[in-house]
């Protein structure tokens, strides 16, 4: 179930990269590289769902973004925000994969990658990288 939640998160952020990427005044090449990282994560999650006998759900036909993206700053803020919102989903996977070290190691790396991408788009460093609107788990 939480693998599907992470997959849904990856679908959503890939959509956001498409919208925000078009508004970036610079570093579009970086955005494309980071979008590729999300595609790889999506593919990994789909593969594991199938391996476990579950059918991966499809992306939603459309997504409502939390903010309107009209310019570079808003695009960066959106991507930073959405990268942080993926962290709770992967943190849940760290617990769910407790009996599968390779998968758990991957989930740990995903948290790190999301935190670094969020920081790249302008999020401040945190003792426990986490979206502002959610209570921290620590």
């Amino acid at each position, binding site marked *: 179930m939480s693998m599907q939640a992470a997959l849904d998160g990856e679908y959503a952020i890939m959509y956001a990269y498409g919208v925000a990427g078009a508004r970036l005044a610079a570093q579009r090449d970086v955005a494309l590289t980071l979008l590729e990282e999300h595609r790889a994560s999506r593919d990994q999650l789909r593969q594991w769902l199938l391996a476990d006998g579950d059918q991966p759900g499809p992306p939603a036909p459309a997504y409502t973004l939390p903010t309107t993206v009209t310019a570079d700053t808003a695009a960066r803020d959106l991507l930073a925000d959405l990268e942080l919102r993926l962290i709770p989903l992967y943190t849940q996977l760290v617990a769910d994969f407790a009996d599968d070290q390779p998968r758990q190691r991957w*989930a740990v790396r995903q*948290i790190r990658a999301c935190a670094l991408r969020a920081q790249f788009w302008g999020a401040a*460093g945190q*003792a426990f990288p986490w979206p502002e609107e959610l209570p921290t788990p620590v």
Partner: protein
Amino acid sequence: MTDRRRVLQAGLVCTALLALPACSSETAEPPESPPVPDPEQADELALITAYDQALTTAGVRSEATLRVIRDEHVAHLRALGWEQPLANTTTSAQRVGRKALQNAEREAARSRARAATNAEDSERAQILALIAASEAQHVVSLERP
């Protein structure tokens, strides 16, 4: 037996009797040994000391960044269950530069990620994974002027 010898013997017996409770009480309550940090806690304590050291020679521009990161390590330490007060162990002789801090953070992030996959329970694994991510962010923060 003379009266004097009787008094002396009685005194020795009394002394022995008085000494016994004292001895048994000492063995029952040995002095508390100081708590020993586990490897993750020890690593966080070492990082805090390194930042304290770096702060003694930091310029105004660096100080804010270093202090924020130092406080985040204190938060990590507390989340890892270390409740003892922090001792200031800085010495004026040792300079700690940003490069050294970055290397220490890079190694800490790797070590915390490894520890997450070896953690005994899921909650600790999650905390260690988040700390690893935070320490990876520190490496980037230290690159900025």
